């Protein structure tokens, strides 16, 4: 048996070492955190953020004002692209991820309950991974649902039979999957950033707003600076490109084979930074 799977017997207990132990611990942390994320006091705001884009779509589906009816189903691709870029990606996923991931550690410092993890026989790096995965799964479930439901709510009430064909036989399915994939990637990238911000900064709202501004002004930035943002890589992947206005500085989209690995690599680096920080973190609730 390799050292990684060595089993140590102490009294009647069986304890694992190495990866098998870490995976079990990640599972235990994940379970604790996922319950908090979905059922905790702080989850209410997440649900409100997640349904934010659905509410106007639902109203439009039920009460379509006269003279506003779109005649061609293809126009919906553009409408959804605007909706996705402006509301879902830049607002729902951004602020939703900020709330979920910042609270993974900052919330527990505020609640004065982080020390229970620190007093367990668990590597703090494992704690970072368990918490990050719980935040990731929470955000992916909520925000990909928002992405998909928003698209269906836009199409189905108006062109039901055409929409069904569009999503089953036409480009609709690939579009919906691409948008869902971009949402997942956004959760991965923003999640890691906000996790680290919550660890380093006592009031993480300010850096979140700074990043929000930076992401919104991305269209004005020169091509080199555009690449120091999450939104540039995500926009490079959207299936329907939208105009960014007359003042936009045009830059070539980054190919998917560069955009996706780059974001994952940066995420990994940020998580390593988070692990380093948590390894050296002291519990001093009075100063938090």
């Amino acid at each position: 048996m390799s050292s990684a799977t060595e089993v140590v017997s102490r009294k009647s207990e069986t304890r694992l070492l190495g990866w098998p132990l870490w995976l079990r611990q990640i599972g235990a942390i994940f379970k604790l955190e996922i319950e908090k994320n979905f059922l905790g006091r702080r989850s209410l705001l997440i649900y409100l953020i997640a349904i934010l884009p659905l509410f106007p779509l639902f109203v439009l589906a039920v009460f379509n004002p006269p003279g506003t009816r779109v005649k061609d189903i293809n126009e919906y691709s553009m409408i959804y692209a605007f909706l996705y870029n402006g509301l879902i990606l830049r607002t729902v996923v951004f602020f939703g991820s900020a709330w979920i991931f910042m609270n993974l550690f900052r919330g527990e410092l505020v609640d004065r309950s982080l020390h229970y993890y620190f007093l367990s026989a668990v590597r703090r790096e494992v704690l970072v991974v368990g918490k990050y995965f719980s935040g990731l799964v929470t955000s992916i479930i909520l925000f990909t649902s928002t992405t998909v439901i928003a698209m269906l709510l836009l199409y189905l009430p108006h062109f039901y039979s055409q929409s069904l064909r569009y999503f089953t036989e036409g480009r609709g399915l690939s579009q919906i999957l691409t948008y869902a994939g971009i949402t997942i990637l956004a959760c991965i990238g923003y999640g890691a950033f906000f996790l680290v911000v919550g660890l380093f900064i006592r009031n993480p709202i300010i850096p979140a707003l700074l990043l929000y501004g930076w992401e919104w002004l991305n269209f004005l930035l020169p091509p080199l600076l555009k690449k120091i943002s999450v939104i540039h890589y995500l926009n490079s992947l959207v299936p329907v490109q939208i105009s960014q206005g007359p003042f936009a500085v045009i830059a070539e989209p980054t190919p998917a084979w560069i955009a996706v690995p780059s974001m994952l690599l940066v995420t990994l680096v940020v998580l390593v930074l988070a692990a380093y920080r948590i390894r050296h973190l002291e519990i001093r609730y009075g100063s938090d």
Partner: protein
Amino acid sequence: MPLDQLIIFDNVSKFYGEILGVNRVNLQIAPGITSLVGPNGAGKSTLMNLMTGLLRPTRGAITIVGIPTDQPERLFRKVGYCTQFDSFPRGLTGREFLNSFLLVHGFDRKRANELTQVALERVNLVEAADRKVAAYSKGMRQRIRLAQAIAHEPAVLILDEPLNGLDPMVRAETIALFRKFAAEGLHLIISSHILHEVDMMSDRVVLLNNGYIVAEGNIHGVRDEMEEHPMQILIRCDQPAKLAAYVFAQNHVVEARVHDDRKGLFVKTRDADRFYLLLNRAVAEGEVNVESVAPVDDDLSAVYQYLIGTTGGSA
């Protein structure tokens, strides 16, 4: 004793910015019950948080039974810590709370369930185990924290004011539990401001004041070393004046005062052992008939008062 059975502070200091937490602490703590005693702000909780890696020393190093405190994955297989933080993860019952963190420790579900049940039984919380911790009384919250500290069967237990909020019956049971752990060879580091309880249960004490260790060791040993404060002894006997004359000839006796009721003698001596030998001789020679002999200030309260200057706390 081998170093891997000791808790060792090697010249440890902790500063919070410019504020002193503890300074130049050198300690070696053997198994048994060791109490940290001192007024609020003396550095007791700081020492405990340093021992458990919740704080990192500004200078120096700490090892707990051979394990450095910056390796929680190894440290907390051996150590359990009951903090003073009266807060819990939201929404959990007592049983879920214990069980969840045993799973985080890495125990499998079956073993975690067993250990949870044992810990609940040890702190008498079985009946309330399936209620939300948020609905617990202060004493029950204290007990569930204690259960969490002992659930994984650690060899070193660090307990910050573990008797706070407990009613007298539960206090007595908890002290008995601590004694049982100590008899099993565990380290117990306990902070308390209830001096008579510390006196009752401790094998040794560490007295802290303003971040410094002012004394440490067996309480009687510490008392014996305080030469500037002669030991006070009250002897109830039939001829106190005669006994006073008999003992006052000795150099080590600095004061001998007959009690107001003329049935006792109050003696201050710099060498209690020699005084007791002297008293034995007086009795053996038939000089006096002694009814009782009681040291007046050979306890923690007196030591605390002499070293720290206040009377400490009481229940």
